[in-house]
């Protein structure tokens, strides 16, 4: 082959290879960054017969990367409405000149009115859109989502980042279940179990400063304290308080580690850090009824003891026994609440299915109605094997 011909072929080869890359890396029908609004949080509300979407977008207040600081001023809120969520999304380009990019979205907050119309109705669009991050945290607001998104936070570059961290921390520290978008979609798709979402609310602000002096701004004006329960059809059905929410975490086997406070009036207050937690929920399938047994096994560190009166004899044993009772109480409270709501929030049907497929087929349609008749027995073992000190304080 002649060298010139060979050279031409090589050039052609490279041109074609480059053209392949063009088709695969986003140069086709692309939208430049300066034409996109990077959505960090989405709020979904239902009002006046349609959905209202609030977008918190990343928008530094001053040009130049060096001015991006840790403040709420880096975020702006955009609102658009539509009869459906997808229509509201489409309308969002009409209220501002940029296209919404939801690939980096961190949080979705659902307002009470939207939640009452069904979770799947509110979230279906985001499940089907390949660009949307399915790892976004899903939160529930008892008021409106736009109110939560508008709340100021002074930690992190964006308020959405703070909301995401609060939700993650609540789950990781064993307070309230931490739920991601794909988990909600999965539960809605399976159509036979309910779901618990963390409830986010604004912290009530005092209208006047107590001391009359100038105060430092609060880091956050929102908090998570409860969980909202949704039926298998995705409709809001009730609230789990703080105790019940923790109980739900034990029952869902979502508890990794947590802190427990044992309070005995006029004796002591002790703080335990449960650093290793194992839970197993197993069904007991008798001929006529189904019950469940929860086994909890924890290893704990006694991190703090405040003596407020005469100390009990064998204090470590006493703390252990009371901690075990406390965990059992939390589990029973969550169990009773789920029974009262007649909703399978703890994947009980899945446990039955794993144990006995035929029995599952028998009970799957009527299980929720008979849930309040199901008994829960617990066996909790807490072993305190770390004391946070170099000597054993009470031995």
């Amino acid at each position, binding site marked *: 082959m002649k060298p010139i011909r060979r050279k031409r072929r090589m050039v*052609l080869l490279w041109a*074609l290879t480059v*053209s392949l890359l063009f*088709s695969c890396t986003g140069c086709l029908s692309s939208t430049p960054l300066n034409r996109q609004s990077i959505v960090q949080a989405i709020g979904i509300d239902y009002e006046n017969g349609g959905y209202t979407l609030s977008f918190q977008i990343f928008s530094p207040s001053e040009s130049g990367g060096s001015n991006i600081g840790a403040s709420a001023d880096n975020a702006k809120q955009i609102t658009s409405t539509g009869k459906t969520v997808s229509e509201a999304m489409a309308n969002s380009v009409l209220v501002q000149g940029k296209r919404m990019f939801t*690939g980096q979205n961190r949080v979705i907050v659902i307002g009470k009115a939207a939640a009452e119309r069904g979770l799947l109705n509110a979230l279906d669009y985001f499940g089907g859109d*390949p660009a949307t991050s399915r790892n976004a945290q899903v939160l529930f607001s008892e008021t409106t989502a736009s109110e939560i998104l508008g709340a100021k936070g002074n930690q992190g570059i964006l308020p959405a980042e703070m909301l995401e961290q609060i939700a993650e921390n609540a789950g990781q520290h064993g307070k309230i279940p931490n739920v991601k978008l794909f988990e909600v979609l999965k539960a809605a798709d399976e159509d036979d179990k309910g779901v618990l979402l963390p409830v986010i609310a604004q912290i009530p602000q005092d209208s006047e400063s107590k001391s009359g002096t100038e105060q430092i701004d609060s880091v956050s004006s929102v908090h998570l304290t409860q969980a909202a329960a949704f039926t298998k059809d995705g409709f809001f059905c009730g609230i789990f308080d703080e105790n019940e929410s923790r109980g739900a975490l034990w029952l869902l086997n979502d508890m990794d580690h947590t802190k427990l406070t044992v309070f005995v009036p006029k004796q002591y207050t002790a703080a335990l850090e449960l650093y290793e937690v194992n839970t197993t929920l197993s069904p007991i399938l008798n001929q006529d009824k189904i019950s469940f047994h929860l086994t909890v096994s924890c290893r704990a560190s006694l991190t703090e003891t405040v003596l407020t009166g005469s100390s009990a004899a064998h204090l470590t044993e006493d703390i252990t026994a009371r901690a075990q009772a406390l965990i059992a109480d939390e589990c029973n409270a969550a169990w009773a609440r789920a029974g009262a709501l007649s909703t399978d929030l703890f994947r009980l049907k899945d*446990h039955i*299915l*794993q144990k006995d*497929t035929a029995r599952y087929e028998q009970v799957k349609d009527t299980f929720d109605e008979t849930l309040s008749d199901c008994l829960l027995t617990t066996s909790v073992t807490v072993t305190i094997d770390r004391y946070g000190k170099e000597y054993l304080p009470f031995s």
Partner: protein
Amino acid sequence: MNANARTHRISAPQLLMLLFLSRLFSVLNISPVFGTLYSGMTLLLGTLLSFCLQCAFLFPLWLLSRRYGGKTLIGCAGDAGGEWLKKGAALLFLLMFSVQICGSLSAFSFFMTSIVFPNASSVLILIPFFLTLILCVRWGLESFSRAAAIFFWLFLLSAASICIGAIPSADLLNITPLPTQGAFHNIFSAALGEISKNGELYCLLLLYPSLRTPKKAAHSGFWFLLLTCVFMLVTQTVILSVLSDFGMEQTYPYYALASVVDLSVLQRLDSFHMSLWIVCAFFRSLLYLFLFKKCLGTFVIKKKTRAVLFYSLAVFLFFGSVFLADHPQAVRALNTSTAIVPALLAFVFPLVIFILLKRKEKRNETNSPQKTHGALMGADR
């Protein structure tokens, strides 16, 4: 055998990696859009059963590669039944490779136009892809096998990172047990579905003479099947334990898994995974196009005529792919009950050829005892 012929051959691990990447595309590309997907334990047991059945399909390859390692199945067919059988076999493979090329390209285009560039034109996606394929086919098997070896490790790294990232979200409670009724039927259907997607089984019958040691072809085949089975079992278990049956209802279950996994600062692993997915599609199409060209050589010996014919047919393949890309229901129809094709091409047909060759050999030995099977072992690469 001259030195040049030896240097243009590939090693058994190179063949294994090339086949694995090619097969991966059909593994990653499973979608309820293109056929029925099973879930839970049915899927896992179906994958295991399909591995066992596919191992049996390697038996004719083992026989042929050990005794007639210098010739492809088409060459063996020529020796066993004359020129007509040779051309018939070549035509059969040509048709199968055409279907596979169109299927692979349309699946690739469907993926690109539904995930990467939603609602984009499939023609725009396929033109540069196809042109590059045509050009790369000219480089030959050795060059793209070497390239495949590099991407093989990258792919394993990507898959491992996704599986590790998914572990915190995994829960074995999500894997549904076998149904009370029709469990075996479902497992068997799932196994047949897997077999129907494994066109690489019959590619092996045309590739083994290109190995440095053709006798190792069946070994490569076995390791290829084992590696694919392990990969599938691990990824399917991860998908099911993270996403449950919901995962298998997504347009692309593997993509759905990649999109929900984050690993520390790598928040969208699906972007990395997607680029390797494109590479898998490329190697699969390249392998089939290379074998398509090889089969074409059976009919036309003249180099220029062969080139003209190849490019003309390539244009047809391109338009066929564009048509299928816009009609996923046609791909779905093609996919149903096609497990019989690999069974025929990878098991029945080569076994028949082997028996015919053995009979011919025996007859030759009876007629002229000094003539051995070595006479049938001319080079045909």
